[in-house]
């Protein structure tokens, strides 16, 4: 396989981690640790696939995936923000619940081939009215050797991830809303004293995290492998959580980290294709082992980690009126 092809597969493998981690980054910046990413992703994946299959519209599936992620996240928000339950335990509950419910809903969708979402440069879109015309430049630009398909021939959600990364960075560090969100995450007591509604800000941040995780799940079942299978998230939600730590809560580093993890997780496929004689189980361990190694490396450095860790991360807040 050529370099261009490998880069393309890395980006595709990175995108679900990227999207989910980006949402969790915003959630954690507001001071809430939601360990339920895996569960929200699973719900997004099953909802996305089911709606796309039943309506024949993959884009509706994407919308459904986002909504399912948000709905699941709202359970978590209710539990941890309104009822101030322990965030770690609630996140675990969300993962167990989401994995179970998605498997239950998805039982009748197993082994049905999905439709998938075409890339912007897909030649099949030529005849489609309006869209075929609008996307013509992408088809032309994708012909550029080496970088054409990487820059112009991706599926729409890859561009969404790039745009969201810029959007999140801009929101967090260049807007008043972002300043409030970070203030709530760093010191909920002070933010409350200044008159900001801590619970409302956090609720919205958790919902945004859910939307992103749901979208990431939808990416898995609609684009990455267009089908539904039980537990298809395979720990990606947990890797996304590690990615946020790796990125030290900065959107730019998160994008780089997502590509790194995408590369690691795709390595096993390429290694198998090259006939490397390592048992497949060991290659499958790579993303998980890499996560541990990366966590260790990053956690050693105080400057990298401590500087950006939201100070009230994981601490429950009860307004004292």
């Amino acid at each position, binding site marked *: 396989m050529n370099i261009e092809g490998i880069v393309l597969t890395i980006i595709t493998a990175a995108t679900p981690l990227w999207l989910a981690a980006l949402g969790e980054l915003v959630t954690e910046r507001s001071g809430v640790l939601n360990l339920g990413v895996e569960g929200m992703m699973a719900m997004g994946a099953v909802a996305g696939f089911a709606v796309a299959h039943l309506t024949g519209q993959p884009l509706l599936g994407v919308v459904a995936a986002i909504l399912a992620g948000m709905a699941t996240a709202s359970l978590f928000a209710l*539990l941890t923000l309104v*009822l101030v339950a322990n965030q770690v335990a609630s996140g675990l509950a969300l993962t167990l619940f989401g994995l179970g419910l998605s498997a239950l809903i998805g039982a009748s969708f197993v082994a049905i081939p999905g439709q998938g979402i075409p890339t912007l440069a897909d030649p099949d879109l030529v005849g489609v009215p309006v869209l075929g015309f609008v996307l013509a430049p992408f088809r032309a630009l994708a012909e550029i050797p080496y970088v054409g398909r990487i820059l112009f021939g991706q599926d729409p959600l890859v561009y969404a991830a790039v745009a969201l990364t810029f959007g999140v960075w801009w929101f967090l560090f260049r807007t008043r809303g972002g300043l409030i969100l970070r203030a709530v995450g760093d010191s909920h007591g002070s933010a409350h004293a200044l008159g900001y509604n801590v619970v409302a800000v956090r609720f919205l941040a958790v919902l945004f995290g859910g939307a992103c995780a749901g979208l990431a799940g939808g990416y898995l079942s609609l684009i990455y492998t267009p089908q539904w299978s039980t537990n298809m998230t395979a720990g990606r939600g*947990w890797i996304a959580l*590690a990615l946020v730590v790796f990125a030290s809560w900065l959107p730019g580093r998160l994008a780089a980290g997502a590509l790194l993890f995408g590369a690691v997780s795709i390595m096993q496929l390429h290694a198998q294709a090259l006939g490397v004689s390592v048992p497949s189980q060991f290659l499958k361990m790579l993303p998980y082992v890499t996560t541990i190694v990366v*966590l260790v490396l990053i956690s050693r450095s105080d400057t990298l980690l401590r500087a950006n860790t939201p100070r009230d991360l994981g601490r429950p807040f009860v307004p004292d009126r």
Partner: protein
Amino acid sequence: MRLELIRRSHQSRLMTVASPLLAFVLTLATGFVMFALTGVDPVAAIYVYFVEPWTAQWSVEELFVKAVPIILVAIGLAFCYRSNVWNIGAEGQLVAGAIAGSALPILFPAFEGPLVLPLMLLMGIAGGALYGVIPAFLKVRFGANEILTSLMLVYVAQLFVDYLARGPWRNPEGMNFPDSRPFSPSQTLPVIFGDDIRLSLVFVLIAVLVAWFVLGRTLIGFQISVLGQAPRAGAFAGFSRNRMIFVAFLIAGGLAGLAGISEVAGPTGALRTVVSPGYGFTAIIVAFLGRLHPVGMLIAGVLLALTFLGGEGAQFALGISDQTTQVFQGMLLFYVLACDTFIFYRPRLVMGRSAGLTGGSGS
């Protein structure tokens, strides 16, 4: 209208006991609605799930067979959670214990006699404990988050046992089935009651008693509580937080390892590609549902085992997907966490918008 929480001056003793019961009732009610909505007769489904397993001797035995590993793991986890150490990788420690303990009968199949089983159990405990020490070490030495590292190690252990059972440890006379060679009677835990109840049930009872004593009556139990609830006070008292992280992971890993080897040297009788259907994760629910108290976890463990068994029955009798079990388990944890709020807070419904910032009248 909105909900306001007012901190109680003392924990509500009533809610401490009532919360898990309330959570169970709410789970049942939600399950009832869920079944009704999906067109299943809810009364029949609830009956199959929660009552039928109690009606025959074989299924009651099966209930305790499933409860054994769950309770063993949960007791270990209680040491972690009480000291505010978040080990969620017990499933991996369970698998590690199963692998370490199985090494003996698989590598030395001719080794028989009264010594082999105790050695297997010890190796299982050691394997689980050593696997549990990895996240503890990474936490203490490098500050790496133990939630993520312990969970990642679950995937590593599951893939490794899959490799062993399909590869080097596969039974040469097993017609290519991905199982190890079956363990001989001296390499498996003896049945002590009925057809299926094995010696491992005694381990559970011992673990409950020892945990009750250690947690409630010894200095180490006191240190665990102090470091868990008031880390600064613990530090001033000279209790070492780092040592506690190691101790908690060692105990949890060791008990998970014991659960793992008791599974393979018990109901399964061989090392297979999958050691447990998620007992290590279910145990997390049991730990919370049982209030991190040994006796509470004993009861909660049987209840959660019931959902596993009921799930199998419901799939067989009513064609309900066995994934319903996981939904029930997740819901149960949701509800118990929600109900636990009222141990510490008194709820008050406020009509209209709150006075908010201006109404600083205190409590």
